[in-house]
């Protein structure tokens, strides 16, 4: 028996309510669930979440600058991206691997619509990554000492990387129907990334998905000069164009898909060109102004007679600085006990994020520098700078102190801390509490000789009230220039030091 079909058979989905779209969504849900429970993806998420939780709070403690915290969310999602690349590639090749391609062609969804469902499953993985990134950033933002502004463009990089890698894997499955292609693509991605980020290509570096500025310099968010929004546009355009190309390769030759490919390629191009524009003249001027004449962009507040000038984003931190200044002044004797200081926040922004030029000491009387970071070692460093200004009069003179005045200076710097010895260890360059060592400060450092360290240690061993009273009693003699460590010990009623007392 022969049946003659007059009209070509039409796919049944067209008559269903909701049409093929509903079927694609149903398949996408199924594929998302499968993708997110693949072993590589589960392992990647476990490692990512574990690593992020373990590291949280290690970089900035309780005082994160959110314009740095947003960038810190970018690197780790690449791991998820690579796992998604492998898994979505293997999922898209599943029917090929099991030889069921021909069976599926009789079903309601043509191959390109099944590819669309796989693409949507990658979107699900990217959304889950976005939740993780939001959690990581939110945790930093909710810390009481958080300052500054995060950038949406920077935060989008993590999820967009996952989307980009996943859709690249999907396109690879359409182009090369072999299981070896995806692992090789992962190796290439991994090491091309290493290769190009190890090289200094300037603006071309921004063609990579994640651009990390390896630096510990924190800048005000308007001086960062990172084209984050353009980069997010570039990544989104690149990812979507790969996904739409995968649809084209799978046979979805619809006008809308062609238009989509053209549109997303244009997005990529616009983002790619705009992100490589480099630093604008306005940015260079703004950086220059913030570095050389910070007073033009800062606002000042007075607390207990002292003045605190900070970049607008750092104003909430004035209270922390004022507490340190109060504690340091309370230990000082003579006129220094009442001396008001000017705390000036400074930053060296002229060389961008990657520069780490040191700040020069200030010459104006009773003006002391504070940096853009806080917490951890930055506290005793600032404390030492305040003590230096109280004793020497200005920062330039304080950083060139080279005599027994170091003893009262360091007493003011660490004497008020709950664990002065620990603060002393943290503020010294080599983390020592004996012998000679350099003392770090926001600007130039100080140098402590072995003898000065001995006297200070003996002073710190006394009961706190007793030590404070002895320093205040002999304040004028102790802070006279050219005093030796032995004389300081004598004034304080401490045993004479035996070590070397000669500074560099």
């Amino acid at each position, binding site marked *: 028996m022969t049946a003659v079909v007059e009209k070509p058979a039409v796919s049944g989905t067209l008559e269903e309510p909701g049409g093929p779209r509903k079927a694609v969504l149903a398949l996408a849900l199924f594929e998302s669930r499968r993708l997110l429970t693949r072993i*590589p993806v589960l392992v990647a998420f476990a490692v990512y979440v574990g690593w992020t939780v373990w590291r949280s709070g290690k970089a900035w403690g309780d005082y994160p600058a959110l314009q740095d915290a947003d960038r810190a969310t970018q690197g780790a999602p690449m791991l998820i991206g690579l*796992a998604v690349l492998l898994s979505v590639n293997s999922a898209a090749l599943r029917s090929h691997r099991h030889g069921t391609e021909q069976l599926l062609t009789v079903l309601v969804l043509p191959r390109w619509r099944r590819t669309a469902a796989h693409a949507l499953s990658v979107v699900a993985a990217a959304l889950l990554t976005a939740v993780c990134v939001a959690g990581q950033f939110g945790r930093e933002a909710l810390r009481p000492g958080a300052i500054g502004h995060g950038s949406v463009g920077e935060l989008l990089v993590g999820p967009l990387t996952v989307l980009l890698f996943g859709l690249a894997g999907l396109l690879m499955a359409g182009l090369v129907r*072999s*299981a070896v292609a995806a*692992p*090789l693509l992962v190796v290439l991605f991994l090491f091309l990334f*290493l*290769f190009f980020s190890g090289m200094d290509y300037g603006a071309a570096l921004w063609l990579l998905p994640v651009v990390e500025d390896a630096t510990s310099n924190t800048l005000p968010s308007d001086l960062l000069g990172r084209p984050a929004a353009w980069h997010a546009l570039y990544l989104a355009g690149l990812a979507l164009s790969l996904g739409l190309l995968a649809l084209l390769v799978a046979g979805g030759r619809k006008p809308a898909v062609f238009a989509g490919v053209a549109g997303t390629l244009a997005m990529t191009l616009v983002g790619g060109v705009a992100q490589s524009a480099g630093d604008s003249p306005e940015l260079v001027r703004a950086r220059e102004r913030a570095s050389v004449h910070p007073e033009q962009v800062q606002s000042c507040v007075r607390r207990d007679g002292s003045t605190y000038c900070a970049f607008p984003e750092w104003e909430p931190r004035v209270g922390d600085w004022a507490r340190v200044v109060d504690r340091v002044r309370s230990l000082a004797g003579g006129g220094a006990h009442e001396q008001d200081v000017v705390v000036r926040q400074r930053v060296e922004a002229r060389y961008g994020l990657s520069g780490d030029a040191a700040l020069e000491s200030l010459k104006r009387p009773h003006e002391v520098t504070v940096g853009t970071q806080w917490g951890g070692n930055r506290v005793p460093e600032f404390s030492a700078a305040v003590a230096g200004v109280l004793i020497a009069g200005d920062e330039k003179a304080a950083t060139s102190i080279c005599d027994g005045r170091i003893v009262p200076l360091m007493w003011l710097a660490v004497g008020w801390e709950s664990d002065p010895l620990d603060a002393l260890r943290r503020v010294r360059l080599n983390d020592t509490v004996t012998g000679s060592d350099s003392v770090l400060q926001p600007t130039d450092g100080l140098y402590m000789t072995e003898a000065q360290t001995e006297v200070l240690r003996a002073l710190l061993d006394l009961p706190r009230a007793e030590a404070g009273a002895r320093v205040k009693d002999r304040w004028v003699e102790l802070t006279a220039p050219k005093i030796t460590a032995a004389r300081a010990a004598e004034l304080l009623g401490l045993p004479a030091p035996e070590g070397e007392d000669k500074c560099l």
Partner: protein
Amino acid sequence: MPVTRQLVLPVHRTVPWGAVGAAGAAGLLLAALTRTGETAERLSLYLLRAAILAFAVGLAFLLDDPARHTTAAVPTPRPVRVALRVALAVPAAAAWWTVALLLVPQGARPPVGDITLEAGAAFVLAVAGAAAAVRFSEVARPGPPVSGGLLATAVLALLFWPGRWALFVPVEDERWAAAHDRWAVVLAGAVVFGAVCAVEPVRRRIRF
């Protein structure tokens, strides 16, 4: 023995040379990147390691055998069949490795013996992983999961391997010699593991 000789051609035809060749090509591409400039020369050790990883990914497919369940019944035992495949791959791997080394400029080439040890350990580990997948499961193509596992191992080891037992050290590092003693241990361990896994289990797990 004559049976083995007669097996050479059929086994050669079932070896997935396509996957191994593609991986080799990708590896050579990575090795060739060392010739693109001075910065690239400084990265030559890392690029060579990447090339090793790429080729190892290809070798993870070496034991793929769609006819596995049919050939299980032939009188030649599995260790011989696996050894035959490995024997066929060894000259190819040696030739590939020579070309990869020659692609790296003379001055930027890491110590040849030590880096060959790393390459050997990675290659043997890949094949041993495939042998383990064949030994402990019923999959006919262990390639995709084993290559995924190999990549995951490489990435996680790179990120989290404790510094006390460092493996991935730069040439000028003082731990280089000690690291290569460890690589030798890895190689020996992988050889033993692979040899153990190549043996056919006496009983097959029955699944319904």
